[in-house]
């Protein structure tokens, strides 16, 4: 009984340290939960690569799947090869960014026009769908005929492949404004233009970024895929890949592939970050 009144004072400091420890552990645990599984998967794949490379493939056929450390050594640590790949990365990044910017302007303008009248939406939407479903490689020869074989043509491919998500998401944002808000604006004499500027466009911003995030990844794909056909101007990642293929440099093809992925992921994350920064005061964080 007497110890009961003593214990709190004894336990208190211990509780304090206990209190801060789970928190730190909690953070470490969370990090482990987030990063652990994908890292394990990566380990498994790297292991399989080594297994195939050293056990299954005979030395003279090892080039088919070079061991991962060769990819790192020749692709990322070799100065000349790294230089080539970084230059190509920069080139592809420019093309995809230009494509995304133009797709944004065209997509947003189309969505604005569609939001103003049902007949505009009805006249344009089927063609937006057609642009979306047509295999991009099937139009590439035509684009080459019209726009040549360098920067412009590559950007056009990016625009075609990435414009659709921007149109649909922006349109959704513009059209889902609460009717009560439209009423309020109308009561104070706000016409279409005023409602578009002060109500519909700000309301659509989060949706615009949802579309942009998808389009950012698509635009990178367009920039790389287009290059397998357009062989003029400075080389990007796609042309570099094709070049390494011609010389059977599988290790360099793989390291270039890593750069392709990195560019796609970086665009996706960058657009997401800009969108979140812009709207963080407006809406609750989406938590899954």
């Amino acid at each position, binding site marked *: 009984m007497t110890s009961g009144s003593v214990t709190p004072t004894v336990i208190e400091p211990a509780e304090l340290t206990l209190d801060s420890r789970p928190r730190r552990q909690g953070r470490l645990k969370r990090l482990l939960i987030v990063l652990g599984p994908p890292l394990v998967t990566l380990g498994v794949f790297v292991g399989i690569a080594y297994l195939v490379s050293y056990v299954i493939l005979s030395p003279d056929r090892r080039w088919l799947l070079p061991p991962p450390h060769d990819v790192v050594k020749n692709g990322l640590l070799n100065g000349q090869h790294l230089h080539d790949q970084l230059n190509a990365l920069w080139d592809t990044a420019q093309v995809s960014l230009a494509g995304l910017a133009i797709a944004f302007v065209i997509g947003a303008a189309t969505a604005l026009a569609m939001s103003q009248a049902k007949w505009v939406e009805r006249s344009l939407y089927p063609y937006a769908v057609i642009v979306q479903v047509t295999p991009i490689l099937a139009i590439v020869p035509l684009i080459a005929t019209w726009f040549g074989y360098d920067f412009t043509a590559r950007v056009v491919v990016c625009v075609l492949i990435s414009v659709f998500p921007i149109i649909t998401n922006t349109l959704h944002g513009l059209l889902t404004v*609460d009717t*009560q*808000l439209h*009423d*309020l*604006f*109308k*009561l*104070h*004499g*706000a016409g279409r233009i*005023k409602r578009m500027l*002060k*109500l519909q466009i*700000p*309301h659509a*911003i989060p949706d615009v970024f949802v579309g942009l995030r998808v389009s950012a990844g698509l635009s990178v794909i367009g920039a790389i895929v287009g290059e397998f056909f357009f062989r003029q101007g400075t080389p990007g990642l796609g042309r570099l890949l094709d070049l390494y293929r011609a010389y059977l440099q599988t290790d360099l093809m793989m390291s270039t592939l890593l750069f392709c992925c990195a560019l796609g992921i970086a665009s996706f994350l960058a657009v997401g970050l800009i969108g979140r920064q812009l*709207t963080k*005061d*407006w*809406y*609750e964080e989406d938590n899954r």
Partner: protein
Amino acid sequence: MSVDASIDKRGATSSAAAAGEVLSFRSAGKTFADGTEAVRDVSFSLRQGEFLAIVGPSGCGKSTLLRMASGLSPETSGQVDRSVRNIGFVFQDATLLPWRTVQGNVELLAELDGLKRSRREALAAEAIRLVGLEGFEKHYPKTLSGGMRMRVSVARALTTKPPLFLLDEPFGALDEITRGALNEELIRLYASEGFAAIFVTHSISEAVYLSSRVLVMTPRPGRIVAEVTVPFDYPRSPELRFDPRFSSVAGEVSQALRQGYE
């Protein structure tokens, strides 16, 4: 000077409405394009500075009635006359713009009306003070509670100093306690600002507590089946709700609602 100006604004009568009336419905009805009859043969008038409540079950056309009153949804039969153009509409939801701060939201209507920045700021500051939200000017709606958002919505409507308020179940989504507090505030604002108001609700006690006259509506199509006069003076205090006379008026409204179903 300012008194003259406000009288001029509020007293502006058109030939259609009788003197002293801000709004009148004469056998007004509304049938939508798809054939749905939402409101049938409604007649009533609203005097300057009168607080009218409309009670009815969900889906009885109360919201349509308010949209008709505001002119947003023109009547398809009969006639609706307004002697005022400046109407304060408070919706079921707070309908704030999430990308604007409290200040920005409250300034919205003055901005749409084309007022100068300094005037907008002054009007907004006064309205924010009236609803007791000083100190929250820079907050975004996201950070406010439901009750506070509704106050912002009321403040926004107050900035234009409307002689007629249309309130469409404005406190319906709030909890009982917040709702009671906002009822007090509305009474206080009504007493100090002297606007006319139509308050739509499905709460009988809210209707009786706020208004000097209750219209009872029945659904499909919405019709006015009874009118109950509420004899209590303003300003009213919360104790009124426990007064036996209050109960008897509420009972009268309740009975009329039930009869409407038969």
